[in-house]
């Protein structure tokens, strides 16, 4: 096939995707699509610069020490991921540069090695997120089951763009790749940072509709905890809607050779 024709086709596909997805400006959507967390670069800001003091709380420091005790003394840096996670829970869902520097200090490793890890994993947020960070699954099965509509409903309801925090600092919406809930697609994750590291939850809400997801947001706003899992009242966990469809009677034993007959 000629390259020119392929190029025209690709552009046509790209146009279809963006125009059907939402009413948001196309260039903004395409930008946030790629930089789902932040740039791989730190820019100093008043609340995020190396001079802002940061330390683990005494309780979390004890947890950190406990985590570090799992690893040999000369491999302390193996604890970098759990410690980053702990710091993120403590700091309301994101990692300021001084938290990463602190972890480097605690583990005796170079700060750049911590930055490398923090930038690699998309679950580490290096810019501010809401107290409730809502992550919409953006992988194929959820997309096919309407996760675009879920995200659009959320963004419209909260009046924000993707990765933007609401004015009250309560919510932000991000995107995540497959979280293994395809059978209950579409789904979102709610990372709850309201109660620090102790009360931190990371719950899946599945079988969503645009209407239900807004209800969830409102429940969260009231400070209540909606029941996680499937939001389809006709389903139990991942079982089919309306009850079991298979294994309705005692299963027949597999056809075996009658060994005695031989």
């Amino acid at each position, binding site marked *: 096939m000629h390259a020119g024709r392929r190029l025209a086709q690709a552009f046509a596909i790209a146009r279809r995707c963006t125009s059907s997805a939402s009413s948001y400006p196309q260039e903004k959507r395409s930008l946030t699509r790629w930089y789902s967390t932040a740039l*791989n670069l*730190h820019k100093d800001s008043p609340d995020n610069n190396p001079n802002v003091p940061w330390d683990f709380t005494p309780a979390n420091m004890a947890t950190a020490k406990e985590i570090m005790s799992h690893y040999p003394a000369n491999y302390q840096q193996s604890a970098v991921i759990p410690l980053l996670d702990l710091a993120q829970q403590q700091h309301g869902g994101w990692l300021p540069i001084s938290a990463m520097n602190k972890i480097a200090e605690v583990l005796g490793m170079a700060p750049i*090695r911590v930055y490398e890890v923090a*930038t690699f994993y998309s679950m580490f947020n290096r810019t501010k997120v809401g107290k409730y960070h809502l992550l919409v699954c953006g992988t194929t099965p959820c997309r096919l089951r309407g996760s675009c509509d879920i995200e659009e409903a959320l963004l419209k309801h909260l009046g924000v763009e993707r990765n933007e925090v609401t004015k009250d600092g309560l919510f932000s919406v991000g995107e995540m790749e497959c979280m293994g809930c395809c059978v209950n697609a579409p789904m979102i994750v709610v990372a709850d940072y309201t109660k620090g590291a102790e009360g931190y939850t990371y719950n899946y809400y599945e079988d969503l509709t645009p209407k239900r997801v807004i209800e969830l947001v409102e429940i969260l706003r009231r400070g209540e905890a909606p029941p996680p899992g499937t939001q389809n009242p006709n389903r139990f966990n991942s079982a089919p809607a309306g009850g079991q469809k298979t294994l309705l009677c005692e299963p027949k034993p597999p056809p075996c050779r009658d060994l005695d007959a031989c």
Partner: protein
Amino acid sequence: MGCSRRIISHLKARPFNSSLSSIRDESFLCQWYSRSSIASASGHRHHHGHNQPHEAQRPSNAGFSPKTASFFSFRPSARWIATEPAANHASTSTSAVNNAVLEIINPNDCIEVFVDGHSVKIPKGMTVFQACEAAGVDIPRFCYHPRLSIAGNCRMCLVEVEKTPKPVASCAMPAMPGMKIKTDTPMVLKAREGVMEFLLANHPLDCPICDQGGECDLQDQSMAFGSDRGRFIETKRTVLDKNLGPLVKTVMTRCIQCTRCVRFASEIAGIQDLGVLGRGGSEEIGTYVERAMASELSGNVIDICPVGALTSKPFAFTARSWELKSTESIDVSDAVGANITINSRGPEVMRILPRLSEEVNEEWLSDKARFCYDGLKRQRLSEPMIRNAKGRLEPASWYDALKAVASVIAKSSPDQMAGIAGKVADAESMMALKDLLNKLGCENLRCEGDGLRPTADIRSDYLMNTTIYGLEKADVCLLIGTQLRNEAPLVNTRLRKAVRNNGAKVASIGPAVDLTYKHTHLGTGPETLMQVAEGQHPFFSVLAKAKNPVVIVGAGIFERADREAVMAAVQKIVEKATVVKEDWNGFNVLLLNASHAAGLDLGLVPGVGVSTNWKESVKFLYLLGADDTPLNDIPEDTFVVYQGHHGDHSVYRANVILPGATYTEKEGTYANTEGRVQQTLPAVPIIGDARDDWKILRAVSEVAKVKLPYDTISALRARMLAISPNLFRVDELEPSSRWVPDSKPAAPGKVDASPFKSTIENFYMTNSICRASKIMAQCTAAFSGSKG
């Protein structure tokens, strides 16, 4: 140096005759005054511009650099040098492709693999990649670098191994006995083409405006292994450029994430600044927080970058690699004597690159050596000058300048004369200076940085006896009064290698500095040294128990008034801890200046009758490029002759200026801190009316009526041969004799309690060339305070 060797051997056959014919002598000065006759003179080796010695004229491989060399030529470093039993040798040599040589250290410890059907025996533990190299087959590579750890992330080195379902990344796969490796099957070719297509998917097609163009691994390998078209039609990604300081220019969109620079920074340079950030399509190399690469070796990332992502900022857009002439020379910015390639275009030095030398600099170069070249174009002394009655320097003819010097020489008494050789003086001119002053009856000669009471009695007392290469074997090292990282970055790299590879324990006495590796700071002054010498310090037993102990004394000690006492303490440590053994000499002195070792070899030290306060009575002072000697304490009426290439500190005091040549403009012999003798070659013509340094001294001698008995550089070298034969054996290391313990006076005086001072305040400003360099000034501004 085949040419000069031939000339000298000819001279040796005919005994050296000091009274050359008067016709020759006349012709010397005659040529001296008229430049045109110099160029046309036959029988002399003048190197002005195009009139190069044939060694300097390389075939038109101007783009030759470590980068291209890494791919297209089989590196000497990749060979395994040892011997193999003669019986096996035939089979190995017949199996090798492209005449590659593989010699095996331990024949019992090797395995046989087959590369493209040829059997090759390799030591156990080598990778498939190394096996292919041993067989003489070049495997394309981007991320693999023989001096860095294996990353295995570019996938360019894919080969087929029989009985494996997929192509194998050869750089990361250990070779197994009997492995059948195939490097030219359709599968391999297709794999390479595919990898190349992926690498080029996000690589901009900006070769015409890229400084790497012409010496780019990606360019070369895509020509060799890539397809003529790609299938990628989407938008190419772009990456934000990083600011790595005044030396390294970044165009990060060109980066292919080979991570060579990251590995170099953390493994060789020892700075943890660079990292791989992000993942997948948005992966990039960076520092995360914006910061300049605070390393004295940062320029090397330019060489190891296989693409144009990291290029030289000062060299940007100034020249193309193929228009440059390469001259193989020696660096003089410190006493390491790193081997360099000077790339020049016409009369201008465009850039300086390292040259492979396993014994000295491997393939690295310090930033000062690499980037000080713009100082060669600024503040140059291009014509002779005489200070007039009003105290202003006025241009003069050579005749007048030489006459002025000669008239003062005639009036001065020998005991009121003195000569000082500067930091970058070559051995030839130092020889001529010594001969000139000695002929006048003066014995007050010294090298810069040699202190009040220099001594050159025992060669092993001022050399790095372990050798730079030998430092790799050290297991315990004591640094005394040296800031290794500033004084000799490439020696520091070797010691870092010893720390990384053998877990060497390093301790230092002196100013506390960041050496880029783990070390213990024992103390700041002689007090701690005395404790170690008395065996009271716990470190003494560590040193005494070591298999290969090393003691490195900084040349800063030479400047101390209590030099003998400190050296006596060091001697005590060396003796008591048996640092010098039958097969190991661990006593080292790290010199600071390129000229120092050769100067001491030639005996540029004051004679016995010279008093330490000679400065008070000096009437005639000859400075051979000496800019770091304080001149405020010499009398008002002292006549100072400054012979050198830069208008630096000393010209303010000079009465006559005789313009000389820089190391890029002359053929000069240098001995590095281990005593290795190497030669510079002229890359560019001498500017203006300046002259080769030894010729100036030769001319001064003739006008002063104490004619020196040589008028060719070969004859001068024959004279050096008589004084110090080692200076004649270029590119060789004359091993110093085993250290003689009883050489020091029994009562060396008392040790002063003052701490060892740092010898180099600013790494980027150590000699007159650096001080004239704008790039070095930018580095000083960017990194001031960040260096230990």
